[in-house]
């Protein structure tokens, strides 16, 4: 049991940090531009596929640098040629544009790479157990992922606290209406922020690809969870997104690891109702409900704290 | 006799910043009451507090004797208070006719009805037509509100505000940005439409204020420094110093 707790905590924090790599970019983009980027998870997927392809061609380490840059470039192009032209039609049109993009990117990826999982391997240099907890070998690659995510997290913090762009972003987070007064280069700031956000998502994809599954439905699976994270944390709040990322990472990881059900916990009290919705609920394992837990959290937070954990804004 | 609006010791702060400090205001029924004051004095905040757009941090607001502080805007509106906005705030994609008609629906008791044909409600149709006549927009009835000229939009804004038949009308700078001729027309319109009702108005144009108001309150830094008839306000040295004196330059 202790073993399970240690391993799941590690995995949960890792998943949470990955989520934060994505949700931080999404939050900053949303706060500055008012656009909820539906295609954010698609950039994550592009990162994984670019990473896979480049690893095949030039090896993992160059791919680790190059793939996020490529994704960032795609993101900047989307901002420059897509969102900027759609802006005049309002936020709903922008949201719809990114929705259409997410749809198209998934189709393009499955057209080029097919629908089955890629053989995206952990680089040989990192393919060894880092340490052993009780009887489980903990892979070094996961430690590497954790280190990269934490490093990016620290770097973001420094950029945010110490640079001019960081100050602009911070101002935008607290006073979204001020963004319009940034001056004449506001378009370039938007493009850079969008590009960096996309590149971070791409980086998450590159490092998550070998460990999780690289497949054309990975964006569709992660995207909704991402939105839960930023709504749960409170729209426009970076600390909120951080807490929500870790929380949801941990909850999901623990839920998947647990095999209990009401039936196993209260076996002798089996109501034996015959096949019905109640017996379904009686027999379902916690692992089985893991995919729906984030959405249950979403509903709960909406009922009890509609602004989200640390949100201050109504819309 | 109870006052139409009674504001008692209301405070409003955003974070550490006090916008409204100990606001007291009383508007008698049937009175035309103007609130004046320098920019940033808290006039719009006062409007937002009374109409329910903002909640007071402390204090109490009464409408016709009943407490309304803390209520939502639509609850206050249903109790007989209607306001306009400084920045034009109409239903841009709907026609002029539809804008006014929507504002008539609640007051005529049709509320959320989904079993009545809105075109077959004689009293709604009649009242909407009357108001369009009143605001001189009958000839523009089928134009989407977003395509009206600025002055027309300001008139529509007034039309929407009075359409529900509220007995307390609050107008936030109704003539802002209008030419001299347009202002005169708007003042005549306001005078006629608020006949027999209570009017609270925020206005920068002193000729409008002194021509229209029965009583005037002067708001400076979130506090009312004087309240009285136009003559009393003109003569008040505190007002001259704090506000009217500034008009000189």
């Amino acid at each position: 049991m202790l073993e399970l707790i240690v391993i799941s905590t590690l995995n949960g924090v890792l998943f949470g940090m990955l989520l934060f790599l994505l949700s931080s970019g999404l939050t900053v983009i949303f706060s500055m531009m008012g656009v909820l980027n539906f295609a954010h998870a698609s950039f994550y997927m592009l990162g994984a596929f670019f990473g896979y392809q480049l690893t095949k061609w030039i090896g993992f380490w160059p791919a680790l640098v190059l793939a996020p840059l490529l994704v960032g470039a795609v993101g900047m192009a989307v901002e420059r040629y897509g969102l900027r032209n759609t802006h005049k039609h309002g936020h709903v049109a922008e949201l719809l544009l990114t929705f259409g993009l997410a749809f198209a990117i998934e189709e393009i990826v499955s057209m080029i790479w097919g629908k089955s999982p890629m053989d995206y391997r952990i680089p040989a240099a990192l393919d060894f157990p880092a340490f052993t907890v009780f009887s489980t070998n903990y892979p070094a690659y996961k430690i590497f992922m954790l280190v990269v995510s934490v490093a990016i997290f620290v770097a973001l913090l420094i950029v945010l606290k110490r640079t001019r762009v960081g100050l602009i972003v911070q101002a935008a987070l607290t006073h979204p209406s001020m963004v319009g007064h940034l001056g004449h280069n506001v378009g370039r700031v938007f493009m850079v922020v969008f590009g960096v956000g996309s590149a971070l998502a791409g980086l998450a994809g590159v490092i998550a690809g070998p460990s999780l599954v690289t497949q054309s439905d990975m964006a569709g699976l992660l995207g909704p969870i991402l939105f839960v994270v930023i709504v749960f944390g409170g729209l426009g709040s970076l600390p909120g997104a951080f807490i929500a990322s870790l929380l949801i990472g941990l909850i999901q990881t623990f839920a998947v690891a647990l095999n209990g059900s009401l039936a196993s916990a209260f076996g002798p009290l089996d109501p034996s109702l015959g096949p019905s919705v109640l017996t379904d609920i009686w027999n379902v394992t916690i692992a089985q409900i893991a995919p729906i837990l984030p959405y249950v959290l979403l509903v709960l937070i909406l009922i009890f704290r509609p602004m989200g954990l640390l949100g201050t804004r109504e819309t | 006799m109870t006052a139409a609006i009674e504001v008692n010791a209301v405070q409003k702060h955003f974070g550490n910043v006090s916008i409204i400090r100990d606001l007291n205001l009383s508007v008698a029924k049937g009175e035309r009451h103007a609130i004046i004051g320098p920019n940033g004095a808290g006039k719009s905040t006062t409007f937002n507090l009374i109409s329910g757009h903002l909640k007071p941090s402390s204090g109490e607001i009464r409408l016709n004797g009943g407490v309304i502080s803390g209520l939502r805007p639509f609850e206050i509106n249903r109790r007989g208070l209607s306001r306009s906005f400084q920045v034009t705030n109409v239903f841009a994609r709907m026609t002029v006719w539809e804008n006014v008609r929507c504002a008539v629906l609640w007051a005529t008791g049709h509320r959320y009805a989904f079993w009545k044909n809105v075109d077959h409600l004689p009293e709604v149709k009649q009242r909407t037509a009357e108001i369009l006549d009143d605001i001189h927009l009958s000839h523009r009835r089928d134009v989407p509100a977003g395509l009206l000229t600025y002055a027309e939009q300001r008139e529509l804004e007034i039309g929407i505000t009075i359409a529900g038949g509220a007995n307390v009308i609050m107008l936030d700078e109704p003539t802002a940005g209008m030419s001299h001729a347009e202002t005169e027309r708007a003042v005549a319109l306001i005078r006629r439409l608020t006949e027999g009702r209570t009017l609270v108005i925020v206005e920068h144009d002193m000729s409008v204020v002194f021509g229209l108001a029965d009583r005037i309150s002067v708001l400076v830094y979130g506090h009312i420094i004087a309240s009285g008839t136009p003559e009393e306000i003109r003569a008040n040295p505190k007002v001259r110093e704090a506000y009217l004196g500034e008009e000189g330059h």
Partner: protein
Amino acid sequence: MSDAATTTSDMPKEQSGSSARFYSIWLIAAIALIVLPLIFSSGGSLTSFSLIGIAIIFALSYNILLGQTGLLSFGHAVHYGLGGFIAVHAMNAVANYNWPLPLPFIPLIGGIGGVAFAILVGWVMTKRAGTVFAMISLGIGELVASSSLILRSMFGGEAGITTDRTALPHMFGWTFGPQLQVYYLIAFWVMISAIAMYALTRTPLGRICNAVRDNPERVEFIGYDPHVVRYLAYGFAGFFAGIAGGLAAINFEIANSAYLGATQSGLVLFAAFIGGAAYFFGPILGAILVTYLQLGLTNLTTVWQLYFGIIFIGIVMFAPGGIAGLLMMHRPLIRAGSLGMVIPSYLMAAIPTLALALGVILSIETVARYTASEGEGNIINLLGIPFNATAPVTWIVAALLVVGGFLVARLTWRRVAEAWDRAATVARDRGYLA
């Protein structure tokens, strides 16, 4: 429709004339629905018409949210799917217990299922509009879709739950076995639902929905609670989506988890938006087009969903009013008689635009064939010309069409804009354009 068509029906002097025209439109629609299967009587077209009918109800129900109330939902299929499942369970129960409930009433039960869930979750969901509502609708959609795989007795797991529509009590001697009878059942419900949803836009609630869409803040100051308005709209949307789901259950004799999934929610959004959310008839056009494309493209290409995405992105960027918006744009020009001024520029723009489209299609198909490991070979048939996906010449042709088409199209569309300005000025001078 809410905007453009209402204005005429408001005018007392025009009322008799416009209401006659109004009823004749519905009458023509009804006659078309009756006659259609007599003209196109093959099994394939009957199936298509049935699917289009279901899609029309679903898309119109979606537009109560998007077009009428300004709520962008990414989870509308939840109500469609739940309506379908309730309908299947109801059909099985009716057959098992010999209840005297004929099949034509089943869609109503689907509708009740749809509205019941809307009442349950709607109050929390509609607290806020805009982006937050969009994300919440997505979350609820995922919640229901994932739950459906867990609650197997209710949703039948991956396989779904089947039923037999002929096992219910017959009506007028109809068994509803043949597709033709199912088509007429669907057509009946299309008429009823479309009329009801149109009527809804003409009620006080329907008008206030538009006001909430335009300016929810102001609505609060004319006595209405925008939350209540959104909640009621959400309920109606759920009800009609449930009817569509019930009809789908009857048509396919099965309900499965795909009914309530994200793809279904996305398709109805595509239909409503591509058709044009600002007009009542927009989603009808969209439903016809999307269903038709879906049926037609699946036979022609393996990547048909990509074309959907591209069409959708194109509409969002260049014609946010959808097809209906594009059509209605021309109404004042037709009335003013200045339409002729833009037609030549259209014809000129059509050629390079078509070349661009063909280039994009050829590129996509080439990549698709080139990367597909298995499949039906490397020959693409475009306009009767065979292209080999592995031949360099194909790649060159595709690139030329795309780049050349784009450059020339950009020039010609500038001409279109100029011609438009001139034609619109004429229309404005003649008083047909505000």
